């Protein structure tokens, strides 16, 4: 099943690369499946042994590879495995306070990163209008979904603004790694945040004006040009997730 026209793509995809990636739509999941996957993965991180979250990582990385994001998958596994390796090396040594901080952060990375991989997959591949349509299929009120979608829309804008401000700061010789920043890190944060806050409040206002003048409202029922619905890939992912959960419950 191939759809030759992509009706939209995810906001965060804009962060990744300048070039638009060609997507293999045969393996595009329904937004509801993605939500279930994310929930299952997050549940596993906090309750189950590491093996289960690794099982979730496996499915997320296969899906990411199918989307053509091999760069992310490679970086992820490199960082994750090296964090795991160092953690295994140092965890039995007695290394004092600073060592403990490093150890704790390594442990955190080791445990949280699987969830991050799954979330990265979900966020970068979900399209705005598909998400809205799936939410309304699940009978979730517009009052909940519209703020959510505004939030998602906001990320790339903040990123864009922050980059412009970073440029302006570099021109003035204010850098992260400089004597001035080390002397006064609070001032650095302030220089960075004040213009960002001013410009994103303004842009947020203009964005919501753009949305309401185009008729986005809580009363009218939206339609969606994208085809949404479950396909065989969705069933495979659902079955896999449920199998993992059942296995975990049975074992414990």
């Amino acid at each position, binding site marked *: 099943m191939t759809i030759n*026209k*992509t*009706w*939209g*793509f*995810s*906001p965060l*995809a*804009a962060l990744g690369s*300048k070039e*638009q990636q060609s997507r293999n739509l045969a393996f595009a999941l329904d937004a509801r499946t993605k939500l279930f996957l994310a929930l299952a993965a997050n549940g596993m991180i906090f309750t189950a042994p590491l093996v289960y979250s690794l099982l979730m990582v496996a499915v997320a990385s296969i899906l990411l590879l199918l989307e053509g994001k091999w760069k992310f998958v490679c970086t992820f596994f490199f960082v994750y495995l090296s964090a795991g390796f160092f953690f295994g090396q140092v965890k039995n040594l007695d290394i004092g306070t600073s060592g403990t901080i490093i150890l704790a952060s390594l442990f955190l990375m080791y445990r949280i990163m699987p969830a991050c991989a799954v979330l990265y997959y979900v966020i970068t591949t979900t*399209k*705005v*209008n598909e998400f809205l349509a799936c939410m309304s299929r699940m009978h979730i009120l517009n009052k909940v979904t519209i703020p959510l979608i505004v939030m998602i*829309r906001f990320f*790339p*804008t903040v990123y*864009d*603004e922050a980059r*412009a*401000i970073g*440029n*302006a*700061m*570099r*021109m*003035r*010789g*204010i850098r992260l790694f400089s004597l001035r920043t080390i002397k006064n890190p609070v001032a650095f944060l*302030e*220089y*960075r945040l*004040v*213009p960002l806050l*001013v*410009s994103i409040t*303004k*842009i947020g206002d*203009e*964005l919501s*004006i*753009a*949305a*309401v*003048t*185009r*008729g*986005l*409202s809580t*009363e*009218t*029922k*939206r*339609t*969606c*040009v994208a085809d949404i619905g479950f396909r065989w890939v969705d069933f495979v992912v659902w079955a896999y997730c449920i199998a993992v959960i059942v296995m975990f419950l049975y074992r414990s």
Partner: protein
Amino acid sequence: MNISLKNISFSYTDSLDDAILKNLNLEIRSGECVVLAGESGCGKTTISKLINGLIPHYHSGTMDGDVLLGDKNTADMTLAEISRVVGSVFQNPRSQFFNIDTDCELAFGCENLGMDPEEIKQRVENVVQEFHLEHLLGRSIFNLSGGEKQKIACASVSATGPEIFVLDEPSANLDLKTIEDLKEIVSRWKKAGKTVVIVEHRLYYLRDVVDRICYVKDGQIAYEWTLAELEAKGPAYASSLGLRCMNLEMLNAACHSVNRHPRSETEGIHYFSCSQLRRDHQPRDVIASKAKQSIIFSNLTFSYHHKHPILDIDCLELPCGQITALIGHNGAGKSTLAQVLCGLQGSWRQKRAARKCGTYLIMQDVNHQLFTESVLDEVLLGMKPQDEKLALEILEGLNLKQYADNHPMALSGGQKQRVAIGSGISSGCDVVVFDEPTSGLDYRQMLAVSATLKKLAASGKTLLVITHDPEFILNSCQSVIRMEHGKIVEQYPLSGNENQLIKMMTGKL
């Protein structure tokens, strides 16, 4: 659909600027194209917000009187209902998209109105053909140029098929060629019998479509003209009201008298040529030759891919102490050149060279480059060593001394721009690059910016100004560089070549 505004009085509750409407009456007939003109802050944008329902539904304030669309009062309609009859296009192309890609954006309005998906696809296909957008489909909003964004905005509003179009300074960020496209869009709407209301300073591109020009002053319609009536009064009258020129071909004659004394304002010299701030070392890549006649930058290249260089310039020569205009269509690589010159893009070698030679960029959105709590701090920040007396001198040169303790964000747009210039001067730069300093300004504000720039040049700084504004170039620049596809195509002094410049910019060469 008729629009009638009856005895409207309005003031914003939470705003300090007094953009107040006082007992305003305006009738716009069905199928008419009306331009609302006037100086900044006169209330013309407020009128456009009354028509598209943002007042009273989005902005709060005290309002008297009625706005009728057809026979319905906007106060009794919801914003969603109003959006079925009124389509709005705004000034800032960056923030008027709710979706992230072009296809979704075109369908967005229709989806919100709950149309049938098949019909939406049909409508989107129609507007794509009508507006020639085939090459823009399936692209990320973040990779489009300002002009392309504005076209998508117009098309997606058009897809829902409203009866009334309200445009708020749509040409502010566009180059002349794209403005030409915008004009075609407006005339297409007019031919289809739609009512079009445009808030605008630039009148020339609407010459063939506009039925009536309403001049707003102090919250009231002060004058109403047809274009012929306004033209009969002459360009001097129009510019005295803050209007931009109405006919680009006549621009040369109009500006001739003002232009020919570029170095007459010399009173600012000693404020800016602060000898303490001069860089004593000369970088290898930048050689000041011919006894400081011109500054030469070499090896300006940049590319994302080896095969498609975005910027490919061996040598850029800027005459010292002069204002040079950098023109070229959207996407010609002008902004990239500015960023490479200022060390914000490019290889580490280019960045190091840029850092040494002291170039400073005044961005189009100056809000990005004001960080501190007071204007004085802003100027002191980049200064090494910090010298308050010198900073105050710089501020005085920019007419900002009385604002030294104010918060930069509390100033007006023009003042913010001058603060940014001040911070550039204090960081000891010799070359200042401006990215579209006059976009969206009325005639008076444009002259003020022009005066600041002339003063800066007279003090010995070298200025490069990226601009799409022929009026501004004729007013203040001494030479012109034109870029195309990342290369410098031509460079010539302005005097004697004015007609060539105008023809080039309007695309009639």
